[in-house]
């Protein structure tokens, strides 16, 4: 893993702190009891389910452990974690089965 300098780290920490607080406070502070425009709420609903998959997909398809070569154990582990999370709604069960799949398959086929 490559490291980053502490200037970058603190910029990110402070920027995220201010930005996250701003997002959380924005409507509670300013909107009063007004209703938000429907189109805005509709898009906000899908930010997490869009940006998290977009972030994780390249990490699954080109894992850093294999120097970005596609790998069956990583792919299978990812699918198991996603499927178990989807079906059980249980985050910890999803992580555990994903990790078991990864280490099991790595032990079996290397």
């Amino acid at each position, binding site marked *: 893993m490559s490291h980053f300098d502490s200037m970058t780290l603190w910029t990110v*920490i402070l920027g995220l702190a201010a930005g*996250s607080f701003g997002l959380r*406070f924005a409507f509670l502070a300013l909107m009063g009891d007004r209703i938000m425009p429907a189109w805005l709420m*509709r898009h906000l609903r899908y930010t997490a389910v869009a940006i998290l998959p977009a972030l994780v997909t390249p990490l699954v398809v080109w*894992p850093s*452990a294999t120097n970005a070569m596609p790998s069956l154990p990583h792919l299978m582990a990812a699918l198991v*974690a996603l499927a*178990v999370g989807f079906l059980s709604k249980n985050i910890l069960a999803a992580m555990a089965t994903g990790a078991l799949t990864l280490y099991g398959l790595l032990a079996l086929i290397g």
Partner: protein
Amino acid sequence: MPFTTTKSAFWRGFRDSAPFILVAGPFGLLFGVLAAEAGLNVLEAFAFSLAVFAGAAQFTALQLMQEQAPTIIVLISALAVNLRMAMYSASLTPYLGAAPLWQRAFASYFLVDQSYALSIAKFEAEPDLTTSQRMAYFFGASGIVTPLWMGATILGAQLGAQVPDSWGLDFVLPLAFLAMIGPMLRTPAHLAACFTAVVTALLAAGLPYNFGLIVAGLSGMIVGAQTELWLERYKTQKEAVR
């Protein structure tokens, strides 16, 4: 059962949030371990959790910093993950908007998935609550998760410094993201957003400065919103025919 006092509302929120110990504890620990692996010391990891206090966004920032993404992309992506907080803020406003500004400012800091989910369910189920009872319930619902998240980060960062590199923890973070995504996929529109983001992320992976992430995230959002609209229209048409 209605609350008799503001104090009982606080403790009710506190008790209702107990199941989230099982999520916030392990994930705080994991953030600490991975932060240590990425080179953060205990103080830096703790400051991160204290200042930002948003699990998915913290993991996102950590991952992108390790990929040496430009700082502006790190910030945009992690804040995009947190855009749902603006939605939470908007949807709590009718219930908490009458409280004093300083209380709303404090509440904003404590606004996370867990405190939102518990509170909105409670406020909708019991419309007769006073504003101060609602505020007390909300703060109670944050009373366990918040200190737990900070404490677990510190513990994790101390443990993480002792984990040897050979353990191959580099895939734990992707697994954590996937585990978080699964339970979020509650409707066909969520699935459409997720699928679009995945496909676009693969197609746009070659773009410089991790810009593919932004493009894929935006595409997913738009497709999710459009699918929701389309499904609503379809439903109304079907009902109109009947």
